[in-house]
């Protein structure tokens, strides 16, 4: 972790549409950005995805411009003149960059009720990594200080170290004395203040005082900050600070608190009365207080949303419109063959007719108002084989079992036996015919889940001998000699942490500790491409539901969007403060969701790379994500053993499913979205009534405005079933097209 920040060649990975000019050396690690709204890549990237080229961001807003200018500054400082030119050309900024004497107060006006004029400025200043934030002076154009020391220099202003305990105690006493309704809200201040004061002491070499401060007050902090406190308590030297990525993140990002206006006034008044400048300064510099009008929140409400590395979500972050609807299915003639009819005759004719109509009707329905434009993201054309597969899918879905609380799915468990190598990742194809496992010994193994064996295509020489005109040419190209139940794919040089099948079952992606994502052909069972870019362990990868695109996320704290035929990423989604642990595509392929070790979830727009949703509430690294089939909801699971449900359209947390006792590694909605299955390290699969969870929530635009809704504690009601495996952690879950639940995991003999 240390070298990430000390690397002298660190550049901002931003400009992706100029791959020739910006070689990969620059993308070692993107700069930490203040938050998603000022995402750099989004503004600059327009590579192959540029269906409406720059129209979406055509008229850059004021703040976007500022960001761009900051980027330009950075590039110029690092003598990347070519990139500067390109960026300028792309963003039509020729004339503006010199006249950038934007003052923070000017920007702050637009920031509404924040009351904190620094919010906008901070975004710019952090992006350019240059501004001492306490002042409202214009951004210095030239700043040659290295980033790290700049960031830390924010602590340089000295208070009397011996008084820190007094200050803190004073605030503590005040908060404990206020009315109950405000106390919960104001208690949020404890943790960020505590951390900042502690760091300040450490930074200024008051080691013993820092230790004493920590001893005295660390016990007051919420239990879900334990992990961070552990990191903190080991840190007693200024030198340690420099190398500690996590704390650097804490510094660079402002901790976001959401406090009702009343509580905020109360606090402000108190601090002003006491002339408690030290605390007030910290609040001003390092915290972002998002003030809302209305009832102060209760303790449980606050707890449900907090816990992330950088505080809560600012409400305006989740205001952007998200097209969560599904794309219109291409119209395909479904040949209704007699076999099916006979099969269903038993159930009576009328029913049969009806189901057919439904399946056809839903496909040809007119565009969902919440769906993105069909061509918002250019998608690959359907091949004949894809159409065949779609037909198969429709046929299967007519036989789908309708699940519900009364009708739970059967569960098949795929146990990996003798996986001494350590099973690290599993994926099923959509039609459940293939099963892939990634192992810690760098291998990827593919199994056939059907009696059909896996065969390779014949060699080129043998293929020449084939009669290409024959009807069964697709059968003839397969080499019968190679038929086997499983195939091993060798190529990675580190544990394989993520595998994902392409929807057409021709490819398999695997991401590994060696920093690469590999694309494997399932025809020849060889590696086709190694996508290099992350340079650090790649924790997860996922194919787009339409193929062609895929997303990967890794230790370098960014997620990257790739197209299979491009060796460089099309988008870089930067903003997470820690490793991106899992990545998933939205069913309409227009969005990507990422979960991170910083305990937040971000939803990114594939079109422009913006972060459009930012969810906090988990108390541990997020290890599983799942979209509901209709694209409206998101479920996330984390090491804290809780599943959280999110309404994407409104940007709200709408449910919390408690029960698991260990990390949740697998989440999956049933094909119709009625059931959510979660699989965990605690060797259980749990089924939740997601329909009820979604229906109970009254989410209208009014409730969305406050950014929080009261969460019922109804996990027990929603839990439909808990199923134990025998010493087998559940690594992956999958619903077949007929709604049979497949679970997979490695049998653990110890």
């Amino acid at each position, binding site marked *: 972790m240390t070298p990430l920040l000390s690397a002298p060649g660190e550049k901002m990975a931003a400009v992706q549409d100029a791959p020739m000019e910006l070689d990969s050396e620059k993308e070692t690690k993107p700069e930490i950005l203040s938050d998603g709204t000022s995402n750099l890549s989004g503004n600059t990237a327009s590579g192959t995805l540029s269906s409406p080229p720059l129209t979406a961001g055509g008229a850059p807003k004021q703040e976007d411009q500022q960001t761009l200018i900051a980027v330009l500054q950075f590039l110029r400082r690092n003598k990347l003149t070519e990139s500067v030119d390109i960026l300028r050309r792309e963003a039509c900024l020729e004339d503006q960059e010199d006249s950038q004497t934007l003052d923070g107060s000017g920007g702050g006006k637009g920031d509404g009720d924040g009351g904190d004029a620094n919010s906008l400025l901070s975004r710019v200043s952090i992006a350019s990594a240059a501004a001492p934030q306490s002042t409202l002076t214009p951004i210095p154009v030239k700043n040659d200080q290295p980033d790290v020391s700049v960031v830390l220099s924010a602590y340089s202003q000295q208070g009397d170290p011996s008084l820190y305990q007094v200050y803190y105690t004073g605030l503590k006493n005040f908060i404990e004395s206020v009315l109950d309704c405000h106390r919960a809200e104001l208690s949020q201040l404890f943790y960020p203040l505590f951390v900042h004061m502690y760091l300040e002491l450490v930074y200024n070499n008051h080691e013993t005082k820092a230790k004493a401060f920590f001893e005295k007050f660390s016990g007051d902090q919420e239990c879900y900050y334990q992990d961070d406190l552990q990191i903190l308590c080991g840190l007693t030297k200024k030198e340690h600070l420099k*190398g500690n990525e996590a704390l650097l993140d804490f510094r660079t990002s402002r901790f976001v608190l959401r406090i009702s206006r009343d509580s905020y006034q109360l606090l402000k008044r108190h601090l002003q009365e006491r002339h408690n400048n030290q605390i007030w300064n910290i609040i001003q510099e390092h915290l972002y207080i998002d003030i809302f009008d209305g009832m102060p929140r209760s303790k449980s409400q606050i707890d449900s949303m907090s816990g992330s590395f950088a505080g809560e979500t600012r409400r305006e972050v989740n205001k952007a419109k998200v097209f969560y609807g599904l794309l219109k299915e291409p119209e395909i003639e479904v040949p209704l063959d007699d076999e099916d009819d006979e099969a269903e005759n038993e159930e009576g004719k009328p029913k049969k007719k009806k189901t057919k109509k439904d399946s056809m009707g839903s496909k040809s329905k007119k565009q969902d108002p919440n769906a993105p434009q069909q061509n918002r993201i250019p998608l690959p054309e359907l091949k004949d084989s894809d159409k065949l597969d779609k037909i198969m899918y429709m046929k299967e879905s007519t036989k789908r079992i309708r699940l519900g609380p009364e009708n739970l799915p059967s*569960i098949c468990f795929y*146990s990996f036996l003798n996986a001494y190598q350590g099973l690290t990742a599993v994926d099923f194809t959509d039609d459940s015919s293939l099963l892939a496992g990634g192992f810690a010994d760098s291998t990827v193994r593919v199994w056939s889940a059907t009696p059909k064996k896996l065969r390779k295509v014949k060699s080129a020489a043998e293929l020449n001998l084939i009669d290409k005109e024959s009807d069964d040419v697709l059968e003839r190209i397969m080499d019968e000699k190679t038929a086997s139940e499983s195939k091993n794919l060798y190529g990675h040089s580190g544990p394989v942490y993520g595998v994902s099948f392409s929807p057409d079952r021709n490819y398999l992606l695997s991401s590994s500790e060696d920093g690469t994502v590999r694309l494997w052909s399932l025809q020849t069972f060889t590696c086709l491409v190694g996508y290099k870019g992350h340079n650090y362990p790649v924790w997860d990868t996922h194919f787009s539901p339409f193929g062609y695109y895929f997303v990967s996320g890794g230790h370098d704290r960014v997620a990257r969007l790739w197209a299979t035929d491009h060796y460089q990423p099309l988008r870089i989604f930067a903003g997470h403060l820690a490793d991106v642990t899992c990545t998933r595509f939205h069913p309409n392929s227009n969005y990507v969701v990422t979960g991170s070790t910083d305990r937040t979830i971000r939803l990114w727009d594939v079109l422009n790379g913006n972060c459009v949703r930012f969810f906090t509430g988990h108390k541990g690294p997020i290890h599983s994500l799942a979209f509901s089939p209709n694209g409206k909801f998101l479920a996330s699971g984390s090491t804290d053993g809780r599943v959280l449900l999110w309404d994407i359209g409104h940007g709200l947390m709408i449910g919390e499913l408690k029960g698991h006792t260990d990390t949740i590694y697998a989440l999956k909605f049933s094909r119709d979205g009625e059931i959510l299955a979660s699989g965990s390290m605690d060797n259980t699969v749990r089924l939740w009534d997601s329909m009820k969870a979604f229906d109970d929530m009254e989410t209208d635009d009014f409730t969305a405005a406050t950014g929080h809704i009261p969460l019922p504690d109804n996990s027990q009601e929603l839990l439909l079933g808990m199923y134990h495996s025998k010493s087998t952690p559940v690594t992956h879950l999958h619903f077949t097209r007929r709604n049979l639940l497949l679970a997979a995991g490695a049998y653990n003999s110890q």
Partner: protein
Amino acid sequence: MTEREERRFAEVPRESIKLMAESSGVELSEEVAALLAEDVCYRLREATQNSSQFMRHAKRRKLSVEDLNRALRWSNTETICGYGAQDALPFRPLKEGELFFVEDREINLVELALATNIPKGCAETMVRVHVSYLDGKGNLEPQGTVPTAVQSLSEDLLKYYQQITRAILGEDPHLMKVALLDLQSNSKIAALLPYFVYVISGVKSVSHDLDQLNRLLHMVKSLVQNPYLYLGSYVRSLVSSVMYCILEPLAASINPLNDHWTLRDYAALLLSHIFWTHGDLVSGLYHQILLSLQKVLSDPVRPLCSHYGAVVGLHALGWKAVERVLYPHLPAYWANLQAVLDDYSVSNAQVKADGHKVYGAILVAVERLLKMKALSLTLAAEGSGAGLPGTTTGAVGFRENSPGLSPPSEPLSEPPLGIASHLQAGGAGCPWEEWTPVSLPAMYCELYSFFGDSLAVRFSTGPPLGGATPPGPCQPLEGRKEPASSAPNLENTRKMPQLTASMNISPRQDGSPRMEPQPPSLAATETRKTCSVEVPPGPGLGTTDIFPKARFPLPQAGPPAFSFIIGGRQMGRRCQGRRFQTSFTPTPPLTTHPPRAYAHKLPVIGRVSKPVRRWTCSHYSLHLPL
């Protein structure tokens, strides 16, 4: 929250730092040591935190050394080596001083390499499916057991193991049958495999007890046939146990009444079965086994029963093995055998009887060799378009004979081990290194010089290689033709010493020691009995002749068309076949042939005019019915 104050982190005291510095020759001041100690603590903690990331993504609960190493590697720090073992490292205090250390015992590699205990196997990674919950209700069956090599046994498995071993090695034949059947089909005994293998390796200690040996071999058979077992490295242990039964001069063979021959035949059959069904696992062993068989064969000090084992072993490994090991060795061996057979002293009677066994075994092996070789040549000549008739017949015949074993389709081609390559790629100085293929006529001539007519006769009674008895003349082969009309006659002439080779088709009353009613196992006995019973008593039954005069129902029930003159030295009943010459008295065209010439014309391969289905094909005769 209060308890976290009590939680202390592991710290490296400054004394340790100073000690370490001293050991590398640096003197540290108190302050420097304190600073360093603190920094070391911090870095350690940081590395641990980073490594936990790798642990979580590997979906484990236990932090491994590998995780820490990865974290170190990614932070450009040297990794630590030598602690990759899965087992926990015992951290021990020394009572006398305040010293703690990681136990790091020296390992004697020689001891390790020569250790006799069975190493832990590494079973293949596999995926197994089972329906855990149907309609979200009820656990249908517990998740299947895992075919791991060595695991702590569950109570049930332990009980199963005890019951099975008790049943197999016990007295009750019925119970044994049931146990063997279960062993053969139980899908959940993988964890017990090492234990069974261990039990089987006990053959060496019961070499006096034929019955037990037999039971153990049956156990091998069941294990080999169990489709759910992955034998892995245990197959070697099994093979060595089987080889023991084939080759060793068992204590049981001291008593001539003991039918250890059957045991050897059975073991050889088992060996062949292992090679045919688990070829991928034992391919490395093939060469080794050939070598050891050859060694036994070429060692004149070894008792004849060992030689017999070597011959049947070679026979079981396929005709190529016979061609390359037995055939070149035959001239040298023949002299020894001849000496034994020629000695008529009373004291030698037993040895001589053994010699006959060996003789018969060689005859069978050689006959098969010729037959297969001829067939392969024929097929090569025909462009191998006609498939492998020999193979199919062989398979059919085999199945009839041994319903228990899946038929190893006896090869024209090599078994999937690549024997040839093994032989050719064998170590320098291997006898078969310089081996060059002998042409079929040359081979036949040479063999004929050893066996004389007995070889020839056997040929004419070979199985219909053409499969469904195509009539008409036999397949042409290198100009040696036998008039088809002579076939039925010849079959009547099977008066030749067939010895052990054809025992399973000889009626039990014929006095052959091998047919003593001592069933090796119940499971096997029934089939074998039926086999024996199927044979209608031939005319020679009543005689006390050790060699049956005719073992087949005569297709033409009339009187024999010709009689025999035994040429050469007439040795009475215990004649050796070598000097036999046949002459046919009245029969028309054939009798005109001078005997010698006739003999040379004999090898009619692919004789087809057999009127009856011949399940008693001579080249199955070594394959005991199970």
